[in-house]
């Protein structure tokens, strides 16, 4: 928790009534294995949600369903008014609205940092190259690494790579950002720089879904913490209630394990 030093003022971060993501009665199986069971989750525009839970509980699978990196078998996922079905047009539409940051960054190693950031805007959004580069530099400045623009990902530290990955997503001007354990492949001293980037994103009102074990981050910026276990949402609450007054036994056990030592 000590990684979050800056006091984050969440009072001005307004959550609108508009629904950004609506998941209802969603189920997913891997073969015979029922990974996600009856998931119901509504995310409003501007909301910042932290998803936590023990390993293997289906957190990654859940957020990967939101941009259809994984396919769900029953129920409904509606993102920004577009329902995810096997219709490729809808999938493309959702993917261009939703940015995703991965645990292992997944930068393209054969492209420079700048090219990583301009690739999708140029090819998907058909933005002219010069304009795409300007946007990319804007976001690279924002994540505080404009000077690395012409290097290759392999030349950057883990924390820098993850900030590039965030900038790369932002270049598509997404309305929703998904984070899958963005800091868990990083050394402790690099976690802070990535979390700071994410906090400033939250302060600008980005809708965020974040799988993370950084409870300090959850307390500082989340509107809601969602706790998952065995493929189900076990508990959701405001961070204050969630940490100080957990309801279910599983949550208590999880919190004692993660905060106890």
């Amino acid at each position, binding site marked *: 928790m000590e990684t979050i030093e800056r006091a984050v003022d969440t009072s001005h971060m307004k959550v609108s009534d508009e629904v950004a993501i609506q998941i209802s009665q969603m189920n997913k199986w891997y073969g015979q294995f029922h990974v996600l069971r009856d998931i119901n989750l509504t995310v409003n525009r501007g909301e910042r949600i932290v998803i936590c839970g023990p390993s293997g509980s289906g957190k990654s699978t859940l957020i990967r369903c939101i*941009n259809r990196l994984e396919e769900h078998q029953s129920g409904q996922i509606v993102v920004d008014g577009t329902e995810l079905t096997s219709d490729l047009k809808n999938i493309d539409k959702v993917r261009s609205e939703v940015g995703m940051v991965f645990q292992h960054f*997944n930068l393209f190693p054969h492209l420079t940092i700048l090219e990583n950031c301009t690739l999708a805007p140029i090819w998907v959004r058909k933005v002219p190259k010069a304009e795409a580069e300007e946007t990319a530099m804007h976001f690279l400045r924002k994540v505080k690494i404009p000077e690395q623009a012409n290097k290759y990902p392999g030349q950057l530290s883990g924390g820098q790579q993850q900030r590039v990955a965030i900038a790369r997503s932002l270049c598509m001007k997404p309305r929703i950002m998904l984070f899958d354990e963005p800091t868990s492949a990083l050394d402790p001293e690099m976690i802070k720089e990535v979390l700071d980037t994410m906090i400033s994103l939250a302060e600008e009102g980005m809708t965020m879904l974040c799988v993370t074990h950084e409870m300090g981050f959850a307390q500082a910026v989340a509107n809601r913490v969602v706790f998952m276990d065995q493929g189900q949402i076990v508990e959701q609450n405001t961070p204050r209630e969630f940490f100080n007054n957990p309801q279910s036994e599983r949550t208590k056990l999880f919190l004692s394990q993660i905060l106890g030592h």
Partner: protein
Amino acid sequence: MSETGTQTVRFVRDTMLPEAAPPASQSGAVKWLRENLFSGWLNTILTILGALVLFQILRGLVPWFAHSVWNAQTLGECRQIIAETWGEGARGACLAVVRDRWTQWTFGFYPAHLYWRPVLALVLLFAALAPILFSAVPRRLMAFSALFPFVGYWLLWGGTIWTPVVALAGFVVGYAVWRGMAKRNALAAVLLAVAAALVWWLFLAGPVERALAGVAPLALESVRSSSFGGFVLALTIGVSAISLSLPLGIMLALGRQSDMFLIKTLSVCFIEFIRGVPLITLLFTASLLLNYFLPPGTNFDIILRVIIMVTLFAAAYIAEVIRGGLAALPRGQYEAADALGLDYFQAQRLIVLPQALKISIPGIVSTFIGLFKDTTLVVFVGLLDPLKGITDAVRASTDWKGIYWEPYIFVGFIFFLFCFGMSRYSMYLERRLKRDHR
């Protein structure tokens, strides 16, 4: 370390030591010899054995090359010169055969007054390859690379200029149809473009060509495929098959990975079938069997048939090499491409293939080297490859009857130059594309 003793806990250096050369036994040749050749008794024995073998080989080879004769008209004359100069019983290389017959090894039975055409084609080939092989050459010259196959064809085979022009026009027709349709439906556009090009080539190209030839009879003296031979033949087949098999191999590799059942099955069957059959079988098929299947009277050039077979053969191997490269890519790369909204073709072209091909460079170049050497197998379908076809022709002449080693060494040496060149290029390319500065 030693500064931790009781009296010397504090230590400050006041004079800086000058740089000194390492002791002789620790540097230069002595050190290298000790570390690499005499580091233990086993290594020492192997070194001595190796030196003996090397000595034996050189004892035979060095005099043979040292006594070589470059100026002679016949084998008998050459042997005589060696005997006169170095004494009776001395052995020497009659490299005069190379000097006497190099045009035959190079051009086969290509008409001598037209030698300039293959030579010009070779020069243009290098010009066409430059922008593809070296990033320093302006990209714009690629336009010439795209035109080269048509220019090269015309120079080598001659005939009316309208043959390559209407062939090229087929691509233009296909491209125009694709451009017109691409906005509406990508798949339909591709299919229609292919169909339009086929219609052009099969039904329209012939009459158009004859009409144009009637109006403007621009033509080079035509040369028949049976006159091709030697390195002109090897390079014609090799270069065509190499440049055609790479794209085909990429498509097969992607097809094999495809989710679409039909495409996947076809790719797998094709790859496994072609890899399971010796190249010579395919060449015999090309030369004999196809005659049964094609309508009688069709004049389907034998070199073209061989190029098709060699291409298919190499493509199957390249597809497997590239599959290895594709498998080496982390899944995260595909996911990142998907998450950014790139479609299948964009993801393959911009993210997957550049990385997979880079990993596959050594394997691809090995396949190309193998392909180039395999062009000598065309001798089995009656074409005059440099290694056996032309060498046999030379050895059958009265002047050089009985010569054995020299032609093979010469042809082997030329093949080595080409293959070694490809190998060095692949290493250069790997170094240039190295991006993981870890």
